[in-house]
């Protein structure tokens, strides 16, 4: 193992190297078993640490902490985000650099632990549960099931009059560090209803809300998300389908109870129009 120190190898495991730097390590991996072993060990340390604290996030938050947050005005109740099975929605940015070694690592370090837990709390799943797609899906569930009036950081397009889409984009612009193009999807039978601000992976994010002619909700989420650009991809679900892509440090996710074909058409129309302000 020549030429790479632990700082560099750690950055490789964490996805922090440039493409060229990562390729240099990739090229060396094939002929350097010592390098492979060291990278596996660094991944082991990472996932063991993550697993050791994973269950804390699943504990019930003490009432005193919730009360401390809600004591501060304005204090209408926040939208509750329901717990979902997140196993099928994983962050590709995190998955990419570790996917190949994850199974080996879990078996080597915490496989015994995994065998004793329910499926949804296995360490490898817990490790990725804060992915932006997970949060987008949870926020959609909140939109579909919770009384919208309780969400203060939300605007209904009915209040905007003519040019509602542009004004909604301006409203988002007040809160986000980018201008946002609000697509008019009426030719596809989608009526613009409004938008809301969300916290996704700790960053302010936008969710544009539509309904179909039958009243079914459809949401377009725009989430700051560092990572390589990603082509449009699809995931089917029981209650809703999901189409997502990444471009220029933003992740886009369209979710709703439409056919995948329809959603792909929508994504093909939306994607070229979304470009962050420079």
């Amino acid at each position: 193992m020549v030429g790479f120190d632990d700082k560099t190898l750690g950055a490789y495991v964490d996805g922090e190297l440039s493409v060229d730097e990562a390729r240099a390590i990739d090229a060396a991996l094939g002929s350097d078993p010592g390098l492979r072993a060291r990278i596996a060990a660094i991944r082991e340390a990472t996932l063991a640490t993550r697993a050791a604290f994973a269950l804390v996030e699943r504990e019930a938050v003490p009432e005193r902490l919730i009360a401390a947050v809600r004591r501060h005005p304005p204090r209408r109740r926040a939208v509750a985000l329901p717990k979902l099975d997140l196993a099928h929605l994983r962050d590709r940015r995190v998955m990419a650099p570790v996917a190949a070694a994850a199974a080996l690592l879990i078996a080597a370090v915490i496989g015994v632990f995994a065998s004793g837990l329910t499926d949804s709390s296995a360490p490898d799943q817990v490790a990725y549960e804060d992915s932006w797609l997970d949060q987008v899906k949870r926020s959609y569930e909140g939109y579909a099931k919770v009384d919208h009036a309780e969400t203060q950081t939300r605007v209904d397009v009915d209040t905007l009059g003519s040019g509602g889409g542009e004004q909604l984009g301006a409203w988002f612009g007040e809160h986000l560090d980018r201008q946002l193009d609000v697509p008019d999807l009426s030719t596809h039978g989608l009526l613009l209803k409004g938008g809301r601000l969300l916290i996704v992976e700790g960053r302010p994010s936008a969710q544009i809300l539509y309904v179909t002619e039958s009243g079914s909700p459809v949401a377009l989420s725009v989430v700051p998300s560092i990572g390589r650009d990603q082509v449009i991809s699809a995931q089917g679900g029981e209650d809703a389908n999901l189409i997502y892509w990444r471009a220029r440090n933003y992740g886009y996710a369209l979710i709703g109870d439409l056919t995948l074909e329809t959603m792909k058409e929508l994504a093909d129309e939306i994607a070229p129009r979304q470009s962050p302000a420079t």
Partner: protein
Amino acid sequence: MKRWNSASEAGTTFVSQGIEALLPRLRRFARGLTGNVADADDIVQSACEKALGSASQWANGTRLDSWLYRIIHTVWLDELRRRRHRNGTGLDEAVEEPGGDVVAHVEARLRLEEVRRLMAELPNEQRAVMLLVCVEGLGYRDAAEVLSVPIGTVMSRLARGRAALLTRLGEAPRRVADGRRG
């Protein structure tokens, strides 16, 4: 017909709602720093109150979680200066009990308990970086901003923390077998 909120009101509400949504992750970070439930929740509560009292200082377009991690870390350092750190083992007090094979479960808990114990033995600055990057999933730039250190320092502390953890994990089975776990 609903009216839309002013930017300042919406922003304050946004922070409040965001903090509430982030409470599980804030507790996890604080638990890793302090090593016990009570201290961690005290720190999170203090940090939340500070954050809400200065919500206007949070800049839209930046990560809310990073801002909160920074406040938690600062509160913890202040606390360390005021008193000696009581290094408890309270992490398991509120952890749900998974089912499954009893022997496997016990072995797994011992293993994860060992990792937590080894983390608690790391120097505070290495532990904080390990928690931010490995557990909370922050990028190097965000972790550097939380800790107010250069990215190179984040990389160095991470490398040292991981190396120490791996070395001690390699020794851990022998310590467990000898009944010398801390």
